[in-house]
């Protein structure tokens, strides 16, 4: 009789036998394949030059000074070229918009250069064509224009801050007097321009000196984020934020969408845009420049303190109007600032840096009207993507289709290219000769680092075609500067300009003005809106220009920590009122147009207001940027370039939004330690007071002596503005791959330095905390690695040895700071040739199955060390600069040798604010933090 029990057992045994055979078979196959697959390394070639170029020394990078552009304005950079390949961007210390630091866009410029999705050939009606065919076709067009003296020739650009482009446009205009020149940049400065016209009767630029401003009020002006002046302003602002009893500035911020300056502010309040506008007038009245309030206005709790502070600071006070504030607010703020008396001290007016600035919205509308009227015979778009980003009610695409001869010069064959007769690939900044002015007027020569990868032409070359000039771009640029340099020392001055990256004495001179306000600006309060819409530039892709840049796409946005997406941001209470939650899909309706968006509920956001970042919902950005997020431009109309009213309807569907930080509060822990200036004065040791009891003095592990170098880092949380420049600089320096939205969802992003963001529990404060590897003296990761792949070296670095790592992930599991990153899949693209050229040759490219993490830029330490030893000396302080440290606009990061008594990092660590993250674990991290000190106005209730 069958016993069920044994039967079952026999079945199991059978199964086991099957399994055993299978295992043996697999083992045999694996052994055979292991033998077969190991064919040894392929023989490598050494390919020397035929004619070795001067100054080239294979194995050593060269740095070239040039400039990157943002909205037309330049930022000076030094581009590192390894064997002629641009691989990394550093700031140019001599350039006023950089001072050695960079923003995220400059860092990402190298990926933009090597992006395989860049347009590689001219297109005629969407079909591959040649440059010669274009020349022929254009010549026919030009002949018609010759007859009409240029009637029907239209040129569209952004802001023109290139002296060469300016002179070419002037030349074109004198050859074709009937030519019309239009300007459009979706992130235009129309309000600023109109505001200065209202106040002074002429267009002027205003530049600020934050290093002299003791009290700053921002009216929705996030001056440290994603603008051409951001790096410089962040630097200056940070210089007065060091905790010093009588030298620390005080920041007030009113904002709709929580921005970086609001996160730094000592007092901030979130208000919808119209309320900020009303408050500006109320402040004007309080300060005696406005006759009356304009409409009802909310009163932030700090209003009286603010007025007192501004009046007390006088000439050292500064009020900033945001670019989205209407012109009359700009005019009013001019009057306020002049009343406070800061002209020449905290701010200066200069003639506009851009050549003939015009109101962009008006300009693109006129162009659309001309197209509708059939007056456009030839349209040359030198810059921009108007089909995608022009005001929605212009129907730009439909108008453009009617133009007989349209030419679009752009880096990608994008939305506008699809509607133009000709698309021409534009060369990258690092492939062309040009010049550009910074926000303060300082000019730089843009020099090529590499020959154009895909042919391609610059705006100067295209204009030379229209001018029928055979000159190369280099000669055109040189010719323009020849006139400035004069005849003496011509060559020398040109070479100096190239080497320095700035041209001396080109900063715009200040003009002294006095504002006069017309009565009319005080009438008509802004109409009340039930739900306001607030268009902002996306922190990563800006207006959409950087949509195909995977580094920027994966960079978590400072506040929401969202990646790979935009979202309709609302405040928690508005979300509750509208019964929506993060991830819900909603339909946004305004002026008969609708867009579907995912919702993200963001603390610190203004109530009754929806913020929609621009730059998403692209259809022809490239394989990276296509089809992600929603296109907010479709709601942006002529009458509402920044603000308007909107209807929000829940669709019931869900959108997958991916964030890198799932918990936003510290829950009473002291990860970021903060005190007010008064508390700090009373107790400088506030950051470590309680810790002394918590940190165990004794340890089972022996203390290791470090008699040579002993590297350490200190991060000043008071300076950090949360701009992410460190994260992306690290990505560029250390060959860190992007993983994509789906992998980020699984928590597998690879950033070696992340910026944690915490919302305060009880007030609207925000803290940022960059977290790289702590290089613990007692590193928990090292204790658990079974193969010794993570060990301490003699300089005290916790090093990760990729060739030893077998991928157990024990180390990551045991790391209390969660800074170790694992290559779960083959993230590095090994096939794309152009991306190979992008990589830093000094850093190993990691494969699937390998753990990685911040190395304190070991390659930079070793390079410096070898160089110093070659010269027979020790490294000096400041000779080794990590990538994150170099990029930081606020100079929050100091790094150096802890054994060097004069090192900056040692001075930083000697600060009473110095504390270790999770010190109670006794990991003894080499990376420490300087606690944050804020400077709110002392409360009457506080003793």
């Amino acid at each position, binding site marked *: 009789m069958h016993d069920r029990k044994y039967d079952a057992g026999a079945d199991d045994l059978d199964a086991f036998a099957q399994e055993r055979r299978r295992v043996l078979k697999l083992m045999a196959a694996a052994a055979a394949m292991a033998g077969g697959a190991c064919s040894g390394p392929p023989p490598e070639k*050494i390919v020397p030059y035929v004619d070795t170029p001067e100054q080239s020394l*294979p194995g050593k990078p060269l740095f070239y000074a040039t400039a990157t552009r943002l909205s037309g304005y330049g930022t000076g950079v030094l581009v590192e070229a390894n064997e002629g390949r641009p691989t990394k961007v550093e700031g140019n210390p001599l350039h006023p918009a950089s001072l050695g630091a960079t923003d995220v866009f400059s860092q990402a410029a190298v990926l933009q250069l090597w992006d395989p999705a860049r347009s590689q050939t001219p297109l005629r009606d969407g079909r591959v064509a040649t440059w010669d065919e274009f020349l022929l076709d254009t010549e026919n067009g030009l002949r018609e224009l010759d007859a009409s003296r240029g009637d029907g020739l239209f040129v569209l650009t952004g802001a023109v801050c290139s002296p060469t482009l300016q002179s070419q446009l002037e030349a074109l205009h004198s050859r074709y007097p009937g030519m019309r020149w239009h300007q459009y940049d979706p992130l235009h400065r129309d309000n600023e321009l109109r505001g200065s016209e209202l106040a002074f009767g002429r267009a002027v630029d205003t530049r600020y000196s934050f290093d002299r401003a003791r009290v700053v009020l921002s009216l929705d002006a996030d001056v440290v984020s994603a603008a051409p002046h951001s790096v410089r302003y962040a630097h200056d602002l940070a210089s007065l934020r060091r905790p010093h009893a009588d030298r620390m500035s005080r920041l007030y911020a009113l904002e709709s969408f929580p921005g970086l300056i609001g996160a730094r502010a000592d007092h901030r309040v979130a208000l919808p845009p119209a309320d900020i506008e009303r408050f500006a007038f109320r402040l004007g009245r309080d300060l005696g420049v406005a006759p009356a309030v304009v409409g009802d206005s909310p009163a932030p709790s700090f209003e009286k303190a603010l007025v007192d502070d501004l009046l007390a600071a006088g000439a050292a006070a500064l009020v900033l109007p945001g670019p989205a504030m209407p012109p009359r607010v700009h005019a009013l703020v001019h009057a306020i600032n002049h009343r406070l008396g800061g002209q020449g001290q905290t701010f200066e007016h200069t003639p506009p840096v851009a050549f003939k600035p015009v109101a962009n919205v008006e300009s693109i509308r006129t162009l659309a009207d001309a197209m509708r009227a059939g007056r456009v015979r030839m349209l040359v778009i030198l810059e921009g993507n108007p089909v995608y980003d022009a005001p929605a009610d212009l129907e730009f695409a439909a108008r453009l289709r009617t133009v007989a001869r349209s030419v679009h010069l752009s880096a990608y064959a994008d939305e506008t290219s699809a509607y133009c007769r000709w698309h021409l690939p534009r060369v990258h900044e690092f492939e062309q000769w040009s010049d550009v002015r910074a926000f303060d007027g300082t000019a730089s020569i843009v020099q090529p680092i590499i020959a154009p990868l895909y042919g391609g032409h610059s705006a100067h070359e295209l204009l030379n075609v229209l001018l029928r000039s055979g000159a190369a771009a280099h000669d055109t640029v040189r010719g323009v500067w020849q006139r400035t340099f004069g005849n003496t020392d011509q060559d020398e001055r040109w070479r100096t300009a190239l080497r320095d990256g700035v041209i001396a004495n080109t900063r715009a001179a200040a003009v002294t003005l006095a504002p006069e306000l017309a009565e009319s600006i005080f009438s008509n309060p802004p109409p009340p809106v039930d739900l306001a819409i607030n268009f902002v530039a996306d922190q990563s892709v800006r207006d959409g220009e950087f949509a195909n840049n995977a580094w920027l796409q994966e960079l978590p946005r400072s506040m929401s920590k969202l990646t790979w997406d935009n979202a309709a941001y609302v405040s928690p209470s508005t979300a509750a009122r509208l019964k929506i939650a993060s991830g819900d899909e909603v339909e946004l309706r305004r002026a008969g147009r609708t867009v579907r968006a995912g919702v993200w509920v963001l603390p610190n956001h203004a109530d009754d207001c929806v913020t929609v970042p621009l730059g998403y919902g692209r259809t022809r950005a490239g394989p990276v940027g296509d089809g992600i997020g929603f296109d907010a431009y479709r709601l942006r109309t002529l009458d509402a370039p920044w603000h308007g009213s909107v209807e929000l309807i829940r669709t019931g569907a869900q959108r997958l939004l991916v964030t890198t930080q799932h918990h936003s509060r510290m829950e009473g822990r002291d990860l970021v330690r903060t005190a007010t200036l008064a508390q700090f004065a009373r107790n400088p040791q506030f950051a470590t007071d309680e810790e002394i009891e918590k940190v165990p003095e004794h340890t089972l592990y022996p203390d290791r002596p470090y008699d040579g170098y002993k590297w350490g880092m200190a991060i000043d949380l008071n300076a950090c503005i949360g701009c992410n420049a460190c994260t992306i600089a690290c990505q560029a320096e250390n060959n860190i791959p992007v993983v994509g939205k789906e992998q980020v969802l699984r928590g597998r992003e690879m950033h070696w330095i992340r910026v944690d963001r915490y919302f305060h529990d009880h007030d609207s404060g925000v803290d940022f905390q960059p977290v790289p590897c702590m290089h613990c003296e007692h590193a928990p990761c090292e204790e658990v690695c079974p193969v010794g792949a993570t060990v301490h070296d003699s300089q005290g670095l916790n090093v990760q040895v990729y060739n030893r790592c077998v991928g157990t992930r024990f180390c990551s599991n045991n790391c209390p700071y969660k800074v170790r990153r694992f290559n779960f899949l083959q993230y590095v693209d090994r096939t794309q040739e152009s991306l190979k050229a992008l990589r830093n040759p000094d850093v190993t490219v990691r494969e699937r199955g390998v753990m990685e993490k911040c190395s304190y830029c070991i390659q930079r330490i070793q390079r410096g060390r070898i160089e110093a030893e070659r010269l027979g000396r020790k490294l000096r302080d400041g000779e080794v600069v990590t990538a994150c440290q170099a990029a930081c606009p606020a100079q929050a990061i100091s790094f150096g040798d802890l054994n060097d008594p004069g090192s900056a990092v040692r001075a930083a660590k000697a600060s009473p604010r110095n504390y270790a993250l999770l010190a109670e674990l006794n990991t003894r991290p080499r990376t420490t933090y300087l606690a944050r000190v804020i400077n709110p106005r002392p409360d009457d209730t506080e003793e």
Partner: protein
Amino acid sequence: MAQVFDRGLVLALKIGTLVAIALTATLLVSWRWSIDYPNAQGAPPQQPLPFSHQHHVRDDGIDCRYCHSGVEKSAFAGMPGSNVCLTCHSQLFRDSPAFAPLHASARTGRRLQWTRVNDLPDFVYFDHSAHVSHGVPCKECHGRIDQMPLTARARSLEMQWCLSCHRNPGGHLVSPAAVFDMNAQLPASRAERRAQLAHYDVLSRKWLTDCSTCHR
């Protein structure tokens, strides 16, 4: 069911199988061993033209740095461009067929493709300048290059070999003037070795065996 095979046959089969496995394993291992490096130690690989270090170094007495100009300044010693070869060979041996690739390269601008003789894995960051500035003579790694009509790899270049010197560099260092000298005398006595270590400031050798010294 009756046994298909008798005991003796089963034993023979078992032994046969084991022998076969052992043989396969040995074959695999020895084959793997033989293909470890593309160019075996001591065997010169095929090059575009039969360049002789023996002739240039021993017979002509040309300094290493004339062609390998980066060796004191860069990680990469540098390979001479065709124009460097042509400083002499635009005149000498102009019509020799062996030089055809060189002249073709100069004429067409197409670069010569030399096969790398001393190849390290890509995760190893060897730096020539660091070794030269610390008195490691060329011949310690490249062997008697002046006696090689065709260039071959002289050392195993395995990590063990690197470490043998990194652990105990004293016996491998020469005075700065003798680095490029093929006949340089290595320090023989303990005192001499110590003097060299002191001269190059490597008395503390801990960092020489750090992982991070060669791997980044």
